[in-house]
């Protein structure tokens, strides 16, 4: 969904789907702005530069003390 096409009604529906059902109209306007900002930040990241082998910064690991 493009940023410009996201409306308050759509945000209200999306919010309800994740249990955010008590947001007022003012809160939904905030959520709309916040969602636009979050998407802009995601778009700023060069995810295309990642190769399949690039691991997350924090990966699950065990040390010798975890041997069972």
């Amino acid at each position, binding site marked *: 969904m493009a940023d410009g096409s996201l409306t308050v009604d759509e945000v209200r529906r999306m919010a309800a789907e994740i249990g955010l059902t008590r947001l007022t109209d003012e809160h939904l306007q905030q*959520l709309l702005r916040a969602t636009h900002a979050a998407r802009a930040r*995601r778009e700023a990241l*060069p995810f295309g530069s990642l190769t399949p082998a690039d691991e997350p910064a*924090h990966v699950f690991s065990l040390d010798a003390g975890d041997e069972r």
Partner: protein
Amino acid sequence: MTDFAYLSVGEAAELIRGKDLSPVEYTKALIARIEKHDRQLNAFLRFTPEIALEDARRAEAEIARGGWRGAFHGVPYGLKDIVDYAGLPTTAHSKILQGNVAATDAAVAHRLREAGGVFMGKLSTHEFAIGGPSFDLPWPPARNPWNRDHFCGGSSSGSGAATAAGFLPAAIGTDTGGSVRNPASMCGVVGMKPTYGLVSRRGVLPLAFSLDHVGPLTRTVRDNALMLDLIAGHDPLDPGSANRAAGGYTAQLGRGVKGLRVGVIRHFYTRDMQADAEMVAAIDAAAERLRELGAEVREIGTAPLGEYVACNRVILTGEAFAIHERWLRERPQDYGALARERLMAGAFVRASDYVNATRLRRKLTDAFHALFAHIDLVVTSSSMDPACRIDDPKAVEYTYARQSRAPFNVTGSPALSMPAGFSKAGLPLAVQFVGKPFSEALMYRAAHAYEQACGWSGMHPAIG
């Protein structure tokens, strides 16, 4: 009563050790100063003079019996109100947690208690270390001691304001996207975000687990190193804690910078963002001063500031929303508007975006750390602008994002903000030093040399 407001931790410790300064008299003097001036600054969210006097009397009695515990015995301090102190509420400056009484001390509070520190109270923060400055919370926002009409930075707002105002020689803050270094920059004090994992986060309300750091704010570099000596060290109960020896942060002070290789990341504040002209001049002058002191200074480059910041925010908002999701479902009206909006930014961060941001984080971090094969220290901007007016929401929103601190939460690198002069309007300017992981002693060495050469840390605001 003698004016003890701007005694450093080191000076106070020496006087107390020699029995030339009574911890009780020192504490009473600071209590009087706080009672007189904090109504204008709001640095304290919960001022606890009764606990302070009890701590001070205990310290005085122990020292009189020959039981001096070390360089923090009888010295006052405060904690940002997301740090647990047993028996007191940890509110995070929020209505949500008004009744949240801590059962035990945070690891950092425990260490300062064991060192014999005098606890003065809980300090103002942005709500949940993200939403501020706000006027719709149960407590007002802290203000800047250099001009109370101006923002004092955040989210460790009270920690910066109280230290600059001479209420305390040292305070503890936290830093997830720059929240120790922002108030340090705005208030003209020294703020260190240590290497990720060097200081335990146990008992500190999280904002974003993988980006959260705990660090000290002080008026001098030496005091900051002294404080880090007290609070650094492995904690097996903090899963992010680095299992390695810590300490010795004052060991290199006085050795100067001759021969140190300094890389200046100018593109952060001249190309990726255009900082205020006075700020640019101050940072460039700081680099030049290091050159005059004998460092080898050259300009270097790294990834664009925007990549680091976006990476920080995608990870931060994703992790923060996971923490706040239940409250946002059940009590959204109990948040202030700024915290609610900033936290809800994580509501629709996709799992793949979060994971890809952490994958990019590894690449950014590896590339940044590789720079240290050729340099010992980075100099760059902290804030792009001096403090704006606190009652101008548009200016706050504009300047809030104009910073280059978040990159070093992404990389986990130690990063220190310190005074670099003053604007024509009399507000602090700041420079940021960044090191390779666990190189805090070297960073303090360079920062101390710069501080001694410039003397900015000897300047204090005229309050009251």
